């Protein structure tokens, strides 16, 4: 899993590639914590290059969503396809993150 963060004004794009799972999700935690600590207003999680996600990876993104929302911010997910899209649809998260 690799990821990149790009800030543009109040918006941050967090692009995640590869597999976000029980093995790799802990590597992302410091970056997610930083986004919360900085009280970013809008975060777009770009998953267009994500090959695989599991419940641990979903948990990391959902936790980010809840924490940012509690601060009055917004988290959106973009680029869902294939296996990650199947998981998001099953868990009814596609509507939560793309509305």
């Amino acid at each position, binding site marked *: 899993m690799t990821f990149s963060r790009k800030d543009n004004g109040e918006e941050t794009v967090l692009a995640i590639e590869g597999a976000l799972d*029980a093995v790799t999700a802990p590597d992302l935690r410091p970056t997610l914590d930083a986004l919360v600590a900085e009280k970013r207003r809008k975060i777009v999680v770009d998953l267009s290059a994500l090959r695989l996600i599991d*419940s641990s990876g979903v948990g990391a993104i959902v936790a980010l969503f809840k924490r940012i929302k509690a601060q009055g911010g917004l988290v959106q997910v973009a680029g869902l396809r294939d296996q990650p899209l199947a998981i998001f649809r099953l868990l009814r998260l596609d509507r939560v993150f793309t509305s």
Partner: protein
Amino acid sequence: MIHLRLPGTLRYRDLAVRVVAAACKLVGKDGDLQKPERAFDDEVVSAFSEAWNNIAIHSYHDQPLGEVQIEIEPDHDQIWIRIQDFGASFEPARVPAPDLEALPESGLGLYIMRSFMDDVTYQPGRPNVLTLTKRLPDRVRSAGRAAGVSRRGDRKK
């Protein structure tokens, strides 16, 4: 039949998942049956991933390193996977269904397995035995029968 024996840690998760993903591509390849949907592979891989997580994170938690024995049988109209571990057992009936409206951050593994597979069975013991079965959609199987592909019937274990 594909046999795989690996240490039950997250380190070997990706290797196991890749083998299952490759096995999925063998389903429906004999005769005229065509498996048109990537969704089949995605759902099997998702379910297996959660099974592996449960073993590595929960079953072998605070226990000596244990082994996971995997058997995979990709058939002409289904895939069957048996996963055995020698760690702590759990009671699936005691695992509550997640409240998806509450946006849970954990406790989704068994739900994903049950949702994506046609059959999920778990027998606690030594070893714990988890079986996952997923069949091709009816329309694909019907098309295969119409094309003359004989059906061997579902596996009974």
